[in-house]
């Protein structure tokens, strides 16, 4: 383990530097995205005012607001550029160069992204989360921060990121077929955003659909961690969710390994 | 035709302090440093002349060209071309000039070359009759026929350069600016491009201003050169003047029988010379000794060399223009005009 860290630490460092270099740009981009959270906030506010009911599908207005912002933060953290990077490498042929290096293809990206995450967490995640907690305090009058929920959330978030990473790497291999990847990535982001509960909590959907989506890997990316944070999952549900997250992580990890091995074989036969 | 007087261009450069704190600070209170890219340059060019604009990297050549073409506004000074001031009334002015930047294309990457010319025809409002004639002429000089239906992105560097030059000439400009027109091309292609430039200059008496790194370009195309270094003009005159002025610079080339024996030669010590007066270079096979013939006679040098080592071959000649200019860049030759 320590050896792995030693080998891959430079990539993390590079990730930090990269993110730091583009932080001004990054900041404006995130700000643009946060605007969308506010639109949803006002929209839901209007919904609660117009509906005249205290809760929708078990969500109070405060829950909904927390859901909107925390699901945004979760998706920012759990988002991985893996598919994009792998796609680029396939198109420009650099992927062949990866085979001659004595380090793991997936881990170099993973550690680089971890570096970028460090910046994201300190610049975006912590301040915005603090804002959400303050909002909760102002509205409800009690400090609603629950350490246990938060720790469970963090654990779930890390799993979510790793699933996302390996899922995206797998998806990136589609560049072998789809060539130009802008459209393919856009389509993926759109579908994943919906299926993971990033647009609307899965609990709002028709029951059959909701159950199905809960089992699919995408719920593990956003919906599961956020529901834990909001405190809307009971203990058995949390345990089942963790089991599901771990299952999907193992699934995509192995899938990624299989595809990579197939690529190596294909390239060593056909010469790239 | 072209008058440039005391032209000067300064750039403001923001000094960034390291770290997040530094960038926030520089965001609100930027610290600027002023860099003078072009300093007080004057020259003029007559109609039909081909002027070579030379100087080392970062000397300010491109900045001058960009001011003359109206891309940059001078900080101070004046330039006037055909009685027009480039950065004023730009749209009107650029109809009379053609510009080629060797490092980047101005053609539309995804359009077929022919389409590119159709776009330019509309932009420059060339009528159908002149367009036809013009294309025929350009085709003859630059041989565009073989790739005119291909998209620009598929052209080779040499083809692209020919296409770019044709694009800049479509509207029959009075002045043609070429910034590094032969950069990155192989010898044969370079030669073709030079021939084409000559033909265009001869045919229509087009004034050509060209910047280049390649001194072959200059020797082939220009009668006159303006040399700049660190933003200032260091030489302005005919190439022959440059040669006669620095003609004292001569070159002796020899191939030693045994390369190891060369270490026995020490010209500086033998003739008590300074660094600027003599320089020895070798490619592992041929040795070339550039020397100031005012300081040391050819005979003495030959005698010393031949008596110290055995050679397979030896000759003495004029240093070519390239050598002289290299010397000027290295400040070996003093320019006290």
């Amino acid at each position, binding site marked *: 383990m320590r050896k792995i860290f030693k080998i891959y630490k430079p990539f993390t460092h590079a990730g930090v530097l990269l993110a730091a270099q583009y932080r001004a740009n990054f900041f404006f981009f995130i700000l643009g995205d946060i605007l969308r959270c506010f639109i949803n906030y006002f929209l839901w506010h209007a919904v609660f005012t117009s509906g005249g009911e205290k809760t929708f599908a078990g969500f109070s207005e405060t829950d909904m607001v927390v859901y909107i912002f925390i699901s945004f933060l979760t998706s920012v953290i759990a988002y991985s550029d893996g598919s994009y990077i792998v796609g680029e490498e396939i198109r420009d042929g650099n992927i062949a160069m990866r085979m001659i290096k004595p380090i793991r293809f997936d881990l170099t990206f993973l550690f680089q992204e971890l570096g970028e995450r460090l910046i994201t967490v300190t610049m975006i995640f912590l301040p915005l989360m603090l804002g959400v907690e303050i909002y909760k305090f102002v509205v409800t009058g009690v400090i609603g921060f629950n350490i246990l929920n938060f720790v469970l959330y963090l654990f779930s978030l890390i799993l979510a990121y790793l699933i996302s990473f390996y899922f995206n790497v797998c998806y990136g291999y589609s560049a072998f077929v789809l060539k130009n990847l802008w459209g393919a990535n856009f389509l993926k982001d759109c579908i994943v955003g919906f299926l993971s509960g990033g647009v609307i909590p899965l609990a709002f959907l028709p029951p059959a659909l909701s159950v199905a989506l809960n089992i699919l890997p995408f719920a593990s990316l956003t919906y599961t961690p956020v529901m834990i944070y909001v405190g809307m999952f009971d203990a058995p549900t949390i345990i089942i969710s963790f089991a599901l997250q771990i299952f999907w992580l193992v699934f995509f990890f192995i899938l990624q390994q299989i595809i990579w091995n197939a690529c190596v074989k294909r390239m060593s036969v056909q010469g790239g | 035709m072209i008058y440039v007087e005391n032209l000067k261009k300064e750039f403001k450069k923001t000094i960034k302090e390291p770290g997040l704190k530094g960038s926030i600070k520089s965001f609100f209170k930027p610290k600027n440093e002023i860099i003078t890219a072009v300093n007080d340059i004057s020259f003029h060019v007559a109609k039909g002349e081909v002027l070579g604009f030379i100087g080392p990297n970062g000397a300010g*050549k491109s900045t001058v060209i960009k001011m003359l073409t109206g891309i940059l506004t001078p900080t101070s000074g004046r330039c006037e071309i055909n009685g027009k001031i480039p950065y004023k009334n730009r749209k009107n002015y650029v109809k009379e000039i053609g510009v080629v930047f060797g490092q980047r294309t101005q053609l539309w990457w995804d359009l077929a070359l022919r389409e590119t010319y159709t776009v330019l025809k509309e932009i420059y409002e060339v009528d159908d009759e002149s367009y036809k004639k013009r294309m025929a002429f350009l085709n003859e000089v630059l041989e565009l026929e073989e790739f005119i239906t291909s998209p620009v992105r598929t052209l080779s560097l040499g083809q692209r350069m020919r296409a770019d030059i044709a694009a800049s000439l479509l509207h029959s400009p009075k002045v043609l600016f070429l910034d590094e027109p032969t950069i990155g091309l192989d010898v044969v292609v370079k030669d073709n491009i030079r021939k084409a430039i000559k033909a265009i200059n001869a045919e229509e008496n087009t004034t050509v201003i060209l910047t280049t790194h390649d001194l072959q370009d200059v020797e082939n195309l220009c009668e006159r050169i303006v040399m700049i270094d660190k933003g200032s003009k260091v030489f302005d005159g005919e190439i022959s003047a440059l040669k006669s002025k620095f003609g004292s610079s001569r070159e002796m080339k020899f191939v030693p029988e045994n390369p190891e024996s060369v270490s026995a030669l020490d010209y500086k010590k033998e003739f008590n010379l300074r660094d600027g007066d003599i320089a020895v270079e070798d490619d592992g096979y041929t040795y070339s000794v550039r020397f100031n013939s005012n300081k040391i006679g050819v005979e003495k040098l030959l005698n010393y060399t031949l008596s110290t080592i055995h050679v397979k071959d030896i000759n003495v000649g004029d240093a070519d223009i390239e050598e002289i200019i290299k010397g000027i860049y290295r400040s070996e030759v003093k320019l006290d005009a």
Partner: protein
Amino acid sequence: MRILHKIHRTFKLHRIFIKQDLKKLMEYKIDFLTGAIGMLLTQAINIFFLSVIFARIPNLEGYSFEQIIFIYGFALLPKSIDHLFFDNLWAIGYFIIRKGDFDKYLTRPVSTLFAVTVEKFQVDAFGELFVGVLLLGYSVPKITLNISFLNVILFIISIIFATFIYTGVKLITSSIAFWTKRSGSIIYMFYMINEFAKYPTTIYNRALRAVITYIVPFAFTAFFPASYFITGGNPWYNIGGTVVMSVILMAVGIFVWNKGVSAYESAGS
């Protein structure tokens, strides 16, 4: 005669580039298809989201589902038209200036703004345009609209001027790159404010409403003009406002652009 000639020239140049972009589209068929499907799906998901909400409430601040869909569809029209014709402004902010590629536009005897925008015809925009038309087609028969000759004219006018609100915002923010070398993220941030326009501005708080009405006036690209058609609000404010805001933004945009062009410092040597 001179004007006619100019219009002819403009159309001819547009035609060449449009043809080219369509050709490119055929070349990257799969990418275009996946992208277009993605665009369609994004909108479909949003509509689905609205329908889920409306399954639980009778109306949103007094607006029925169909009225919301009308506003939403209306919003997509100017957005997609701007997207279709003025997409290259993004490239100004992202890389054209940073790489020094702006030089070539300065050596052409046409306005730089025209030379930049004519170059790209963004075919992807058809996805949004299609959805917008679809949503209007769905909602118009279901809401009470006064379809008169005058209103059709006003509709066209408001779409055209709303388009230039988008273009104006992009023009101002992309021009920043003339001084800072890049401004892509700034364009993005301001551009994203358009998302507010898809819903009735009455749902937002006062400060936000002021911002999207007077500062980055995207409210005039959809909600205000659309509400004239739905509720018969004051046309002078709702559509006149669109025209005025659009003219102001374009004037400021062109002014900043021209300032930027003269401050432009080409890249490298």
